[in-house]
């Protein structure tokens, strides 16, 4: 009975391993992950607030991705990381959860709650945050006319009480 039990367990283990292997093969990405060497890098201009409150351009190299969303994500993540001005327009704790390109000139950025909860507030800081984001996306990626900002997937009234965020922000008005 003992031997039978061991043989059964071994057979079950082999079956299970086979199943896992088959499933992994099935779920394997159809397209290989972007080859960083091949795709190379590109330079984007980050728009960061200077100590006088104005925005300054700061060039940054990013690894080019396969889709527009990949490049937008990398540029916005660089913006969150901050630059030489020492002023971070988006709180460092913020995560960019999703990027969506509607294919008709509108990019949607879905941020984590930290962009609001860790923001210092005040109209000047709020406007600088929005201008930094919209300029960085709008200037570096031709064809993007509007940037919609969501927080945790939701449309919000404002970031800090001063600027209407219920609709997309027009790149021409914010850059």
């Amino acid at each position, binding site marked *: 009975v003992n031997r039978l039990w061991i043989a059964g367990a071994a057979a079950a283990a082999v079956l299970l391993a086979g199943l896992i292997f088959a499933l992994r093969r099935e779920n394997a990405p159809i397209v290989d992950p972007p080859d960083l060497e091949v795709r190379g890098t590109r330079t984007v201009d980050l728009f960061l607030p200077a*100590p*006088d409150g104005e925005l300054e351009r700061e060039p940054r190299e990013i690894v080019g991705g396969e889709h527009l969303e990949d490049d937008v994500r990398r540029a916005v993540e660089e913006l969150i990381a901050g630059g030489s001005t020492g002023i971070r327009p988006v709180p460092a704790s913020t995560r960019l959860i999703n990027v969506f390109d509607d294919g008709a000139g509108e990019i949607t950025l879905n941020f984590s709650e930290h962009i609001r909860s860790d923001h210092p507030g005040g*109209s*000047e800081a709020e406007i600088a945050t929005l201008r930094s984001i919209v300029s960085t996306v709008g200037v570096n990626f031709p064809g993007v006319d509007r940037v919609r900002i969501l927080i945790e997937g939701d449309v919000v009234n404002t970031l800090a*009480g*001063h600027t*209407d965020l219920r*609709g997309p922000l027009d790149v021409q008005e914010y850059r």
Partner: protein
Amino acid sequence: VAAQEPGFAELTFRLGPLGGTVELLARAAPPRLLLAVSETPPDDVPLPAFERSPEARVTPRAVRVVVLDPGHGGSDPGVISASGLPEKDITLAVALRAKERLEEAQGLRVVLTREQDTFLAPEARAEIANRERPDVFVSIHCNGWFDPGLRGFSVGVPRSEEPDAASELPRWGTRTVRDRRDTETLAEILLREMGERLPIPDRGVRAAAYAELEGAAAPAVHVECGFLSNREDASRLVDPEFQATLGVAIAEGVGAYRHALASGEVDSP
């Protein structure tokens, strides 16, 4: 409004006799209902003579009613100072002092959008103000920045907007040319009067899409009293005496604008 229950409102319009056509249009972004009345009546229907209601008459430009809007409130504290005092308390104190001064010294009717620590959404404030048929709308705030570097007071004006090109009808938030011009004048005069009374730097007039000014049917400005993120500005802003000085400075600015209109210093419409 004939009937109202949560989530629903029934609106009744009694129009007429009208010569033209009437259309009720629903529009998105921003959501609104438009009642469009055509200007040209059929040839065979004579237009009745209407007595225009007092509100509809073109009033000469004078300042009689002022709406002051203390920024933030309730669950929205605004910027919080290092000492823990929130912006919402400072803006209310400044607005109450400005109201007192305008009523005493200028004899004006002054209405506050909030007199308590209550939450008001930014986009609701212009609508609340418009119910009072204001001649001036002043929203009062304290500023904030990412580091302690910036300081000073400023006056914000709505970013100049173009009428909605896709629609022949004005969209909510589109301001008359006269209001836009008067807003610039009001902002310049307020800055001058504040500069004469406040011992902090002047950051000038700043144009931006201030949510609470959208749709205001009057010259409308967004006053920033100083930076709570700056130690020097903050030490003054939390001081009740300085809050009173701010209230007086804003009141004197509105008073000077009123005199400029009355004396014809400002171009007539």
